[in-house]
């Protein structure tokens, strides 16, 4: 996948038309890299990595619910402080963790919320008259926007911290502890497995096409090609599912799913969960006391 990126990277889109191909390939490659990157942190020896995955899952959900329930910046700051502390103790690279969240969030959530700053009624911060239009953000609007963006950021941080410090197999197994039906967990884990195969396949198809194209292609041609590729992927999916089913049958699959769960909850896990609940309750209560 690094070779793929290397091949594609040198030629930036000259006519803006073929650009989406690189963009797509770049997206796939990036997500693959990200996935592998995250597994690396999950295997390192840190505080969160040693916690029982089921406890970690419940704690993360508690904190996310608290982030959604609190309505004050102080509560969100408390939650984010705790999240950063946990990330630090788990040897998640600080710059990576903070940047990955806060470079993206203001961009997406922020753009969404900007017009609301000007429309919400209330006292104005300043009033800039631009001809007939008045540029006048209100304090209420700014407060709402700040809380909104922080809440999205804290929620995303918590979800990322959970996934970054937990191997995927453990995330899925702990879903069982939350009473998610076995079939769903199995489908999820198999999807995860074949996802990578499909991404590699799609990557290969794109690269093969890229390396055979000279000159420009029209938008219509590109759309025809992309739908053909999807149909092709679908037919591969059918063949593959038959093969996989045959392989499962050959290994004694009879519809029953058995997993071995060797997780053990230790006192420190209970303490960690208790701490999370206290922080979460605190964050919500601060919102009630301090407006």
């Amino acid at each position, binding site marked *: 996948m690094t070779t793929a990126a290397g091949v594609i990277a040198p030629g930036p889109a000259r006519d803006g038309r073929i650009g989406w191909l690189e963009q797509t390939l770049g997206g796939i490659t990036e997500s693959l890299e990200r996935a592998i990157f995250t597994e690396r942190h999950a295997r390192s020896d840190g505080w969160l990595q040693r916690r029982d995955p089921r406890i970690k899952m419940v704690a993360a959900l508690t904190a996310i619910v608290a982030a959604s329930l609190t309505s004050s910046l102080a509560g969100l700051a408390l939650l984010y402080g705790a999240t950063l502390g946990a990330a630090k103790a788990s040897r998640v690279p600080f710059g990576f963790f903070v940047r990955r969240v806060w470079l993206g969030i203001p961009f997406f959530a922020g753009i969404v*919320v900007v017009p609301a700053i000007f429309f919400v009624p209330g006292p104005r911060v300043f009033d800039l008259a631009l001809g007939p239009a008045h540029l006048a953000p209100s304090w209420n609007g700014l407060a709402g926007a700040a809380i909104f963006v922080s809440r999205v950021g804290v929620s995303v941080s918590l979800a990322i911290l959970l996934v970054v410090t937990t191997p995927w197999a453990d995330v899925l197994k702990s879903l069982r502890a939350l009473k998610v039906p076995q079939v769903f967990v199995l*489908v999820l884990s198999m999807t995860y497995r074949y996802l990578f195969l499909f991404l590699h396949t799609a990557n290969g198809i794109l690269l093969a096409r890229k390396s055979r194209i000279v000159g420009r292609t029209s938008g219509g041609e590109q759309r025809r090609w992309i*739908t053909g590729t999807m149909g092709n992927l679908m037919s591969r999916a059918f063949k593959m599912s038959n093969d996989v089913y045959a392989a499962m049958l050959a290994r004694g699959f009879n519809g029953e799913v058995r997993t071995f769960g060797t997780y053990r909850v230790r006192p420190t896990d209970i303490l960690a969960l208790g701490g999370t609940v206290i922080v979460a309750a605190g964050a919500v209560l601060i919102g009630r006391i301090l407006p």
Partner: protein
Amino acid sequence: MHIPDGYLAPAVSLALAIPTVPVWAVATQEVKKVLNNRTVPLLAIFSALSFTVMMFNVPVPGGTTAHAVGGTLIAVVLGPWAAAIAVSTALILQALFFGDGGVLAIFANCLNMGIILPFVGYGMYRVLAAGSPLLSTRRAVAAGIGAYAGITVAALAVGIELGIEPVLFSQNGHALYSPYGLREAIPAMVIAHAFGASIVEGLVTGLGVAYLQRRHPEYLTSLSRIFAPDATSNGVAAQRPLWQLVGAAIAGAVAVLAIVGLVEGGGDPGRLFGADWSKVDWPSVATMLLVTAVMGAVLLPATYLLLPRGVKRIGTAFAALAVFAPLGLIAPGFAYGEGNTEDVNAAFGYVPSGLRDLSGVFSAPLSGYNVPLPFFSDASAPLWHAAIGYEIAGIVGMLAAGGVVYAIARILRRGGSTDPLPEGAQP
């Protein structure tokens, strides 16, 4: 279209699990029934496919790119239940693993993209393609249109979910969650999708089905047998039952009215369907319903027995319309007004002079669709009196209209028309 955490209030996020989780349960059962042990690998691999499809960015008119969901394409091949599971699984993976869409918002995202999208898309596809041969162009076009409709309706659902946030959850005048009301959120979502992502989804699905028809017709024949046993494969026209069409039309109209009413009333449930329901006097409505039901129970069988054989069914249907028409009296002053001169004055600031002059020219014998007797049309008469007056006016009107049409038809027929009317049709 992936809603992140923080946009929806936790109460809304969790409330959306109420429709989502049962659909998952039913979908699992439905898919198991036809596939038994094969379910797991097939669903897993199609989830991976859906995930991969969401990764493809396709250029759209306007210079940007958008990605498809592929829900309708999967629904056309595997059926809507399997598509619901496949897309939902892909969405859960995206939320947990790639941070695309929130963790708490999983139910919302799965409802929009994993359930509403494939079911609307597939339903539309089935209606449009009904009875056409499996490998016809019409099927590919129907799949494309279905996909377009599916993702647009899903966008509408997102708009509603985001739009009710400021209505339900605000503090000190500022919104706690997504800050835009229904008035902003619905057009923003629907228009952005209708001219962008929906086109992509429609094209991808239509061309994808065309590709499968050309290269892998076996997936459309053998599998659709399993997943949608009532689909025709040999071009025999399948008649869609009338009640399904009528039911769909009524449900659609009610949904549209409900949404318009919610937007108009600013999300106040007391003003659902654009009417002010607090003005309704419910006890008198109950009396009126009772009277109407009794009249229906007496009048309808009598009409059916009395009418000549040829017009039995159509006549009874019209009588039913007349009997149940007063139900419209319940609805209090609709937001758009009833069109009297005051409303016209309020809306336009003046009454067209022609209208004012004409309104006095002809005073109808049953003006206001009521019988001009104090019992029926007195201002203080109970609602059920008005209802009976309404019914009498309706029946008289129908008889009059039917009589005029019948007379004209007799005159025309005597005028020398030689082709006989088809069997069963009445003038």
